C-alpha cells in the first residue's frame, strides 16, 4: 500500500447510549504512515471514538472500513485481527498476573490443543521488552504487573500492542500520569513506530504533547467532527490552543481568522 493511502475509514459513525448520543455522525480517515492527533474537550466523544476504533463499541449506525474493506461485525477481536492495536487509557491489564500473561492476553501462543507455549511467550516478551527499551534488573517477564509503576505498566501495554506487527497503533492518553522522562520515552516510541512506516493515532489532553508529535489533527466537539487538517494549517501549538478555545466558546473552529491573532 502507498504511504498516505487511507487505512481506516470511519463513515458517518453514530453511537448512542440510551438517549445520549455520544457520536453524531463522525467520518474520519486515517492514512498509512501518519501520526494523527485526536483532540477534543472532556465529554466531546474522544473516548467513545477511540473505543469505536478499538472495536469495543459497535457503532449504532455507520460503517468501519479497513484497507478498503467493510468490517462487520466490528468487535475487539476483529480490530486486532485487522491490525489495529490499542493502548487503552486504563492500560487494560490484569494486575494480578505476570507481564508475559498480560502481553499475550487474548492472543496466547498455543499448540493445536490450546496449551500455551510458555517458553516461547517468555522469549517473545523479552524480545519485545528490549525492542522498546523496556528492561530493568528489578523485574523480569514473570513479574506481577500489579507491582509495577505507572510508566512500567504503560510499557507492558505498549509491548503488547507491538507484538504481531500491528499496522495501526492507537494510543489513548499515553502520557497522562507519566513523569517527564517516561513521556519522552513514549514520544521516542511514537517516532520509532512512524519511522517503520506504521500509523499512530495519538489521543491526548495535553495539546502541546499532541502538537509536537502529530502530523495531522482531528478535533471533535460535542460528538461531531469540528476540524480536520494538517500541522501546516497552524503557526504553532498556541494557534491550535486558540482554536480549541474558540471551539469551546462558539462551537465553531475558524483556523484562518485565528492566524493573525495567534
Amino acid at each position, binding site marked *: 500500500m502507498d504511504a498516505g493511502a487511507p487505512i481506516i475509514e470511519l463513515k458517518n459513525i453514530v453511537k448512542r447510549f440510551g438517549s445520549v448520543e455520544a457520536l453524531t455522525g463522525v467520518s474520519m480517515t486515517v492514512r498509512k504512515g501518519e501520526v494523527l492527533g485526536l483532540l477534543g474537550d472532556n465529554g466531546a466523544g474522544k473516548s467513545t471514538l477511540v473505543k469505536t476504533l*478499538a*472495536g*469495543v463499541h459497535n457503532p449504532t449506525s455507520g460503517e468501519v472500513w479497513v484497507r478498503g474493506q467493510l468490517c462487520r461485525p466490528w*468487535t*475487539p*477481536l476483529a*480490530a*486486532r485481527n485487522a491490525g489495529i492495536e*490499542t493502548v*487503552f487509557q*486504563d*492500560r*487494560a*491489564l*490484569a*494486575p*494480578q*498476573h505476570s507481564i508475559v*500473561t498480560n502481553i499475550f*492476553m*487474548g*492472543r*496466547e501462543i*498455543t499448540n493445536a*490443543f*490450546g*496449551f*500455551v507455549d*510458555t*517458553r516461547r511467550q*517468555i*522469549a517473545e516478551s*523479552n*524480545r519485545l521488552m*528490549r525492542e522498546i527499551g523496556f528492561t530493568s534488573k528489578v523485574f*523480569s*517477564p*514473570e513479574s*506481577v504487573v*500489579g*507491582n509495577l509503576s505507572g510508566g512500567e505498566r504503560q510499557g507492558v501495554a505498549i509491548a*503488547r500492542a507491538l507484538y504481531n506487527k500491528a499496522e495501526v497503533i492507537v494510543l489513548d492518553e499515553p502520557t497522562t500520569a507519566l513523569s517527564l522522562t517516561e513521556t519522552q520515552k513514549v514520544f521516542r516510541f511514537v517516532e520509532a513506530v512512524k519511522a517503520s512506516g506504521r500509523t499512530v493515532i495519538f489521543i491526548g489532553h495535553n495539546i502541546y504533547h499532541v502538537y509536537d508529535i502529530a502530523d495531522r489533527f482531528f478535533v471533535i466537539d460535542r460528538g461531531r467532527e469540528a476540524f480536520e487538517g494538517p500541522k501546516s494549517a497552524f503557526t504553532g501549538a498556541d494557534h491550535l490552543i486558540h482554536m480549541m478555545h474558540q471551539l469551546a466558546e462558539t462551537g465553531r473552529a475558524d483556523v484562518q481568522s485565528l492566524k493573525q491573532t495567534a
Partner: protein
Amino acid sequence: MTETSQATAIIDNRREQSRIRRFYAVNGRAVNSFVAFICVWLFFASQNWMLFLNPGFYGSYLYSIPPSIIMVTALVFVITAGEIDLSFPAVIGAGGGTFMWLMIWGMPLVPAALVTLLIGAVLGLGIGAIVVYGKISSLVATLGLSFFIIGIVNFLAQGKNLELREAVGTWGNTLFVGKWTIFGTQVPNHFILSLIWVALMYFLFRYHRFGIRVQMVGDNPNSARQMGINVERIRVGVFVLSAVAAALCGVILVQTANMVWFPLSGKAYLLPVLAAIFVGGTPVWGGVGTVIGAFFGALTIGLIPSGAVGAGFAGYWTEFIFGIVIIVTMVVHRFSGGRVS
C-alpha cells in the same frame, strides 16, 4: 549467542538468585494449603499415633473423598472467574438420577455414565446462559436454579429413592469403585480417577488457553473484553465445567452407595466443598486460584470428620474443628499476600 537463548539466559540468571522465593511467589497459595493439611493431620495424629500411622485407617477416607476433590477443583475455575455456583449439589442429584434412570432403561453402566456427563454439560450450558446472558448475579441465579433443578428431579422421582442392586459388582461398577491394596491401604478406582481429574484441571487451569482466560476475566473483565476475549463465553464455560464435575460426582456417589440414589444426595456437599475451595487458597475476589491448593483443601476438610473421631473427640466437636481450621487457614493465606491492583 542467539537472541532467544540470550533472553533465556537472562531469565535463568534471575531464577538462580532466589529459586525458592520465586517458587513461593507463583505457588504460595498451594504451598500454604499443603502446610495447612499437614498441620491438621499432625494435630489429629498426635492424639493417637498408632491409629493415624496405620495405613488401614485411610481406606474409608479414600473411598469417600473423591467427589469432594472433583467438585472443588472444578469450582476453582468458577471462583477464579469471579462467579459462584451454588447449583452444583442439585446437579449432583440430577446427575445421579439420570445415571440411574438410564441404567434402569437398560443402558450399560459405562455408556450411561458418559451420557450423564453429556447431560451435565447441557445443564451447565443452561445455567451459565441464564447467569451470563440474563445478566443476573450468579449467587442469586444459581441459588434459585438449585431449588428449581432439585424440584424437577424430586418431581420426576416422586420423592423416592432409586435402587439397582443387580448393577453392583458388574465390570463397569468395578471399573469405578473396585479397590486395590497399595501399601496396606485400600485404594479405590474412583480415587485414582479423581487424581487424574486433578491433573487434568491443573493443566487446564495453568497452561490451557481456557484456564488462562478464566483468570484474565476474573482479574479484570473490561481488560479481557478490550483485548478481544469473549468474556461471556468464558463465563458460560466455567458453569459447564462445574456441572460436568457435578454430574461425575453424581455417577460416583450412586456407586459408592451400592447403587442407591436419593434426590438430595448432593446436598451434604454444599458447605464443605465451598469451605475447601477457600481453605485451599483460592481467594474470594477472583482472578487467581490454585487447583493443587484446592486438592489439599478438599483433603483437609475431608479429614476432619473421621480424623476428629479417630483422635478421640466426640462427634459433636466436628463442627467446632471445621470452624477453627477454616479461620486459621484463612489467616495463614494472608501470608500469600492480598490482592494487588
